[in-house]
């Protein structure tokens, strides 16, 4: 039984799972990456075809409810999830999102290959999220 547990534990350890990137915001925050100059476009290009609060469950292609990225608030409340699924950083390079197939229009059929962010864009995403968490917000 002990051998079985060891084997199973090794199987578990080698499973590729979403991992926090460990990215930190430079101190002081340079404000070079913001929602207006980076985050909004990133989400528009790669995410909101499925992660949009206007989409009913049946049109989200598996995107969980309350993971809606058409606003800064929507991104902010699950920024850790985004980092673990799409961010690159010192501790992990997560490319679980976007998936392979996407709708060409929000809520539509999976009729096209998803646009994929570059490695540099994924690193910027992780850094922007890290910085955004510490910035003052009014929502």
């Amino acid at each position, binding site marked *: 039984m002990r051998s079985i547990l060891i084997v199973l534990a090794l199987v578990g350890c080698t*499973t590729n799972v979403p991992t926090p990137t460990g990215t930190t915001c430079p101190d002081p925050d340079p404000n070079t990456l913001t929602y207006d100059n980076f985050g909004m476009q990133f989400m528009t290009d790669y995410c909101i075809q499925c992660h949009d609060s206007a989409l009913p469950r049946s049109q989200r292609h598996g995107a969980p409810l309350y993971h809606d990225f058409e606003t800064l608030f929507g991104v902010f409340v699950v920024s850790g999830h985004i980092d673990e699924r799409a961010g690159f950083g010192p501790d992990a390079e997560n490319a679980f999102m976007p998936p392979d197939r996407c709708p060409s229009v929000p809520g539509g059929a999976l009729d096209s290959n998803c646009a994929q962010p570059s490695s540099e864009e994924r690193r910027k995403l992780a850094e922007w999220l890290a910085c955004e968490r510490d910035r003052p917000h009014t929502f």
Partner: protein
Amino acid sequence: MPVGPRAVVLVALLGPASVRADHDHGAMQAGPSSFGASIAFVAASFDTMIYAGDYQSVVPSARWSNERFFVSAGLPLYRLLENGRTLYGPGDAMIHGRFVALGSTDRARAGVALGVMAPTGDPLTGLGMGHVMVMPSVWGTVRRGDVMLAGAAGFGHALGGSTHQGHGAWPLVEPMNISEVTWTASGELELAVALRAGVVFSGALPVGEGNTRAVTGVRVVWTEGRVETTAAIQAGLAGDPFIFRGVLETALRF
């Protein structure tokens, strides 16, 4: 005195009180060493805070038992519909063992059990937990006339892995917490020589963060020679394990 099959069938239902154990039906452990196999068909609908959909699964399993030991291993294969996306794939594999420590008749028996789940299912899509789950438990049964009562209590804990991606209990198909205390209570009545019916309550309390889970169900068990067929209808009471679930399982003892 040989172990009565009715007692052990009920014991077989008392794995760790995870939702999965509720359909670990049909083990016939009637004395001499024997091998067996079973196949279960499962259909369920679910509606959690962030996901809604349904799933169907086929669960083949193999088993071995003698008078005091029972071991089974199974791998569920799923079709999962979650928020408009349909997926196919394996779930987490399950190995389960039980040992009869006290008692040798139907009247009163008790023992220990250990369930281990291996992360063969995809944790990103809700088919798997993403880590090994170890679930030791203790169980006992009492029989008076045509009525049998059974109970079990256990502890489930994840080895490795971390947060279930922040979704609380996970995966969608067999939600469990990272660490939890589990329980099961059941009663069964012999309606005829080969026909029994019963009710089951089971659930889990999280240790640390997580969701309390509770399930109830009714089942009918028909035994004919070496074949045993179980039909069950279950309902989620708390923690959103599912809304309703149906299980049909046939087990054959070689």
